[in-house]
């Protein structure tokens, strides 16, 4: 009973929070929703114990549904027709930035996990790849607001940053998928891969079949909810990532269905509350009992910031982007929602103390980046000259 009451309390808080944020955001750029992390800590076992570990376990189905919704919404951003409208140099810019982050954070994380945490090579490789995937995504939310106040000459920079931020999530998910594939899995999971691919393909066909006819908005909402639960549940039940499977489903549907706009309109209503829900859950799971978390978080933040800045500088060397400010990386400092989603899923798929510790440290780094981001964006858009 407690789990369900807490679930409804969380739902109400998230919908109200989403409404309040929508109202407050134009006036206060500092409000990003990350405040819900701290609300999660308050409701979690560390303080009020409303979201206690048993309740969190009971709400696991809600967790995989949230991941599914976030993955599906994210997949809907990858319409090839829309992505092709942008200058050809932009995908290279996004790939360069992501590569810089992976090349710098991945080896650092691997060395730290091998030498400080004492993990064996294969485990350290899997966790390092997951940490690198967590470092890639950047947020669009702050950029949207900053772009409104950007001077005319930096409008294109704001557009490029938003493009990079939306593509970053896909790079992160691909690396995360590869990391999970590297995991020395039990034989059953390896056997399950072709079966799961068949399920995903048949769900895609099913979604297309059901969206072939024009349907009422309520019907589309129901079908989208059903497909999210079905695909994310099927993935979780087989030890795969609900986030990645829903992302793939979304990306396939947006490129093939005529009803994509109407599906997206329904999903978009849930985007912010689901994100806040995720932050609430992450906050409740956040473990701050180890002293090593703070230095680990600072190290992760420093590594990622350096990688983002140097990646930003590197992309301004690409042809067609030489006019962009050299400090463009400052605009990519805040982590995107996909990072939070991976953070929620990663310790559940790879249970054990390294993942729990790493997730808590990365969460602290994400909160730090969210707090610093408005100032860095202001510096980029108000203080920089091209």
């Amino acid at each position, binding site marked *: 009973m407690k789990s369900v009451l807490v679930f409804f309390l969380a*739902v109400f808080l998230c919908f109200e929070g989403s409404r309040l944020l929508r109202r407050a955001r134009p006036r206060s750029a500092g409000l990003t929703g990350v405040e819900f992390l701290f609300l999660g800590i308050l409701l979690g076992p560390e303080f009020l114990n409303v979201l206690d570990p048993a309740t969190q376990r009971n709400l696991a189905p809600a967790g995989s549904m949230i991941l599914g919704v976030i993955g599906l919404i994210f997949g809907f951003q990858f319409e090839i027709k829309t992505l092709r409208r942008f200058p050809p140099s932009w995908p290279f810019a996004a790939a360069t930035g992501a590569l810089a982050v992976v090349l710098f954070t991945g080896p650092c994380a691997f060395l730290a996990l091998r030498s400080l945490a004492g993990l064996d090579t294969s485990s350290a490789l899997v966790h390092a790849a997951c940490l690198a995937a967590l470092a890639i995504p950047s947020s669009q939310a702050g950029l949207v607001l900053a772009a409104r106040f950007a001077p005319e000459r930096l409008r294109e920079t704001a557009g490029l940053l938003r493009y990079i931020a939306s593509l970053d999530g896909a790079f992160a998910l691909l690396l995360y998928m590869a990391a999970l594939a590297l995991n020395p899995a039990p034989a059953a999971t390896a056997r*399950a891969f072709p079966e799961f691919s068949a399920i995903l393909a048949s769900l895609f066909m099913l979604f297309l*079949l*059901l969206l072939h006819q024009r349907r009422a908005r309520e019907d589309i909402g129901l079908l989208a*909810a059903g497909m999210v639960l079905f695909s994310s*549940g099927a993935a979780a*039940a*087989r*030890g795969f990532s609900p986030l990645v499977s829903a992302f793939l489903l979304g990306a396939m549907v947006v490129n093939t269905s005529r009803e994509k706009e109407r599906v997206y309109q329904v999903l978009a209503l849930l985007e912010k509350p689901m994100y806040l829900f995720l932050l609430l859950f992450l906050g409740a799971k956040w473990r701050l009992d180890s002293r090593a978390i703070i230095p680990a978080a600072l190290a992760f933040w420093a590594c990622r910031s350096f990688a983002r800045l140097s990646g930003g500088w590197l992309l301004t060397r690409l042809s067609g982007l030489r006019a962009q400010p050299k400090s463009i990386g400052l605009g990519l400092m805040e982590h995107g929602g996909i990072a939070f989603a991976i953070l929620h899923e990663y310790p559940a798929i790879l249970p054990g103390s390294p993942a729990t510790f790493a997730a808590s440290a990365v969460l602290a780094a994400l909160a730090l980046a969210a707090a610093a981001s408005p100032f860095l964006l202001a510096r980029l858009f108000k203080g920089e000259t091209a």
Partner: protein
Amino acid sequence: MKQAPHALRSHMLHLLAGLFVLASAAVALGQRPATAFAAGGRVSLSLGFLLVFAYTASQLAAGARLPKITGYLLAGALAGPFLLGFVPRPVLLSLRFMDDLAFGVIALAAGGEIHLAALRQRRRAVLLNMAFQPLLVFSAVFLAVFFLKPFFADTRALPPVKHLALSVLLGISACALSPASAIAIVSETRAKGPYTDTLMSVTVALDVVVIVLFTAAITLFKPFLSAGAFQPARILGLVFALSASSALGLGLGRLIALYMERAGHNLLVFLACFAFGTAKCAHWLAGFTAARYGLTLHLEPLLICMAAGFYVNNSAQGPRFMDALSGFSLPVYVLFFSLAGASLDLGALAQCWPLALTLAGLRVLGLAGGAGLAGALAGDPPRRRRVAWMGYVSQAGVSIGLAKIAERQFPELGGVLVTVVLAMTAVNQLAGPVLFKSALARLGEAGGKP
């Protein structure tokens, strides 16, 4: 004529989709979850499967001019533990909370369907139906169980007092109706008219009467069937709890109206939280008063939500309130009825179908007699009198709930009672919506597109 190929294509498409979803579920559910994360995934998977499959089945049912809830029920029954087993019993139990939520929302909508002006206008018909229907249904079922004792294996071996108690309890539980099915059909067909108004009021009020009668019967039989003593205070306690539930519901309805007037944000989420919170708080209060003071104050969440819905809909906020609820109705109905279908005890039906079918048939005769007589005395036109009974056949939660209470009170009797009630409910729940929709169509009260 031009629509025929389109309709055929639509049926084929939904049939294909149904097969796809079944095949996907068959593969997806084939492996036992290894971790807590995987077990949580299994629940999501079953829920998602049920949503998509029940929706597809409802589209096929609508194509065959059957009510959509028949599609939800059949899909649930097919996916449930008795047939394909895609939604196994533990998953069904973990989704129980959805019942509380859906039941609360349906009760809010059912209360909202009772319009004060229409109620005043149809008061005579409502009261006559409430008098004759239970009288004739109870008599038919009671007499059948009592006098046909030697013909059925389930009743043959019972001693006389137990047999009398079984006859009375089965007779009373046969009088229970299904406000949830009624509201779902009214909402699907957008029905409006004197028949719909009467039926909604009778369906809601009769369930309250049945609860009182059933508790009175249990209290009466307790000294004869078990070691307990006759406790007339139990009946008074129940009447108090029901009155308190109605009063509390009206008060909470005032608060909902106030919230809508002053704030009104995220109304859907607010109403869902209200519906669910009411059910849970009522259960908690019953446990708390029993543990702390040794007496059970069991407020009836269904009645609280109905009274709240009734208040809000008859206030200035009525149209907005009903709009918000209708935006929520599709997922609620799909979940509630598909879970109800999955819970239908087909095993019980297989076990005692001769008795269940006999009683279901006699119940229909009682309903037809009661509704026809009430209609004649209320001055309803003959056409309405002939089909009036068809809307009252559905039966669900209340009768099963009452049988389970009796099972706890009289374990030596409960087995037979619950099995027969479950089997009878399975028959009535599958046939009821089809009959009600047909009655609305015949009387011309089905307003919207089916």
